[in-house]
């Protein structure tokens, strides 16, 4: 499955538009991580645990979107966008959406 945030791919024709597909994922860290993070907040620097958490969460959201896309018979998702919202202390929602299409010659 081709995933891109471009709308037009040079040399490829869109045969069919299959509509919006989306995926989301809400994750949080366990309390231990939060305590470690609040310590890090005194000294500054990268919170690696959160970087990984959000990256894994984004992967999951993308997989859910791709599952939707293959369910409608797409072979590519174009013009995708990510959106992130912090919904509570230590929990964030990742949302990804795009247009499912059928491309010629992938």
């Amino acid at each position, binding site marked *: 499955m*081709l995933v891109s945030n471009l709308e037009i791919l040079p040399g490829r024709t869109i045969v069919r538009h299959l509509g919006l597909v989306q995926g989301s994922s809400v994750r949080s860290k366990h309390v231990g991580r939060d305590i470690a993070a609040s310590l890090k907040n005194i000294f500054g620097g990268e919170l690696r645990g959160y970087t990984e958490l959000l990256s894994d969460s984004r992967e999951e959201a993308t997989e859910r979107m791709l599952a939707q896309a293959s369910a409608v018979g797409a072979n590519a998702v174009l013009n995708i966008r990510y959106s992130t919202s912090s919904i509570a202390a230590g929990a964030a929602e990742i949302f990804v959406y795009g247009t499912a299409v059928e491309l010629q010659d992938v």
Partner: protein
Amino acid sequence: MSSLLGQAAGVVILLVLGYLFGRLAERRHFQRLVRQEAEIQYLPVVASRYPPEDRPYRQQLVSGNVVIASDYFKAFMAALINIFGGRVTPFESMLDRARRESILRMKAAAIELDAAYVFNIKFDTTRIATGRLGAMEVLAYGTAMIPQDT
């Protein structure tokens, strides 16, 4: 009275720790950013939606993200500046670091794919609440254009 003094002393210690370690971390980070940016400068990142058509490319989404925490001193200074208003420079530099780091990570992912360009770069910036203080996440993503020799 003595507990109040104790609390004030605690805040002062945290401020000093935050100032020393936070500044050190920031300086090191900026040094690393400058070095790594120079190393992978050859890969152009383009903020355009229209990719080149000079030769056949394969496209793949690449992204890089980073969560950077503020330090106690930054948070304190920001609260002070907030009273009078104006440029909150402690957070400006923090977000600059986060954004540049996320671009670096995205470019590193693109280089692994032997990409010639990264097109249509987008950013997504979110405040990640960790208790009382905050951290910022920056995500950079774009489409890696990988030349296909046919």
